[in-house]
């Protein structure tokens, strides 16, 4: 597990994106700064209850976390966090997680 979620800021114009891009959609630059967000605002949430072609161990809570820098990240919610609140971010096996309120 690593703390936070990595996102990218254009060195030229300052646009923040997630996931990474090759060229900046705003200015066309190819030069990025890697940044890590440790918290975000949870905007919405759902509970996935079934998925074609796979057996779920149980319902999976997912949501959209809005980084302060702007980008939206789809995260797994491991605690009873509710939309509209600030959540702590981590990355486990490449998957962004919002484990708890912050």
């Amino acid at each position, binding site marked *: 597990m690593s703390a936070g979620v990595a996102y990218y800021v254009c060195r030229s114009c300052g646009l923040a*994106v997630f*996931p990474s*891009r090759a060229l900046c*959609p705003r200015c066309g630059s190819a030069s990025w700064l890697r940044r890590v967000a440790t918290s975000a605002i949870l*905007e*919405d*949430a*759902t*509970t*996935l*209850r*079934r*998925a*074609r*072609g*796979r057996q*779920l161990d149980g319902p*999976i809570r*997912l*949501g*959209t976390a809005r980084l302060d820098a*702007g*980008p*939206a*990240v*789809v*995260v*797994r919610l491991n605690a009873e966090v509710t939309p509209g609140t600030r959540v702590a971010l981590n990355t486990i*096996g*490449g*998957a*962004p997680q919002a484990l708890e309120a912050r």
Partner: protein
Amino acid sequence: MDSSPNEAVIAGTGETRYVRRPGPRTTTVSLLARAAREALRNAGVRHSDVDGLAVASFSLAPDHAIDLAWKLGVRVSWLMDDASGGASALNMLQHARRAVEAGDASTVLILAGDVLEPSAFRRLVDEYNSATRDHLAPLPHGGPNSLFALLTMRQMAESGLKRSDYGRLVVAQRTWAARNPGAVYRDLLTVEEYLAADLVADPLCIYDCVPVVAGADAVVVTRRSRARRPVRIRSLGALHNADDQQGNGLRTGLKEAAPALWEHAGLGPDDVDVVSVYDDYPAMVLAQLVDLGFTPDGDFHRLIGAITDNALSVNTSGGQLSAGQAGAAGGLHGLVEMTRQLRGEARGRQVEPAHIAAVTGYGMILYRFGGCANAAILERIR
């Protein structure tokens, strides 16, 4: 309008039976071949007349368009592999039309179809693109349903729509499907049954998610001089990667493409008799109709009322939600249905009059929502 004999028109369509559980001998190529034969017969075009081929399929690999040309036995001067999912039909039409008008080909067969077993479907949704493989599959997200559940939450918050409003839309499409023998789900549905159905990803229930089927669709594009009962492409517009996935997904590329689309057609939404909107989810039906200007004030409730009252005939095959989604054929399904309506071939569900149709394509989830959007305005030529 171009009325020269070289004008590219739609001359015929084909669609295999859609099936939920295909037999072990059903292959993608066999379905594409069946749809192709039906479309050529419907168009009155000979197999040997085909000199252009375009195909979209998630399950054709490792084969490509050239392998398909070989297996279908067609010699072609124009060839296209398309990978634009729900936008593939209109993307192929956009290119095929120009190829015919420029003389690169005279008769193009546009095909799409898939057979996706549950394990193949899982691989497809987990490895849809690199962003999905790297950032969504590890969650796991389980495919697009969870992403469009979140998008629907956002649309509900923005518009004040309730689950029952989406239910009315789903019920209206099922009512059309009851009149389409080609739809996999034809039993009438009530809003009460919709609200009581199992949830897939809140707020989406089983009726909000397309049933995956095996099947294929086909369209023939040729010169007007060669076509019987041709359908004219009055305009076709697209805007892909409209917002770099920086928006909320509630506005599609159609929002910006719509003014030129209507201007080139010389028509407006009020002139349209029948509409096919890419319906991977009910929320996207509403989003695209709003983007195209079918409810100028953006009033979702009035739009749903117009659909349920049949003031606006939308997804007359039952749409993918009731007829089924045959993978990459999901986009071509709507173009086939609108062509059938305009040519008076929509038995049991024919809209009268049907002079002008609108078709949309949408899809290819880049990260949180679709990155492709296109639309065409079609006209019956007497």
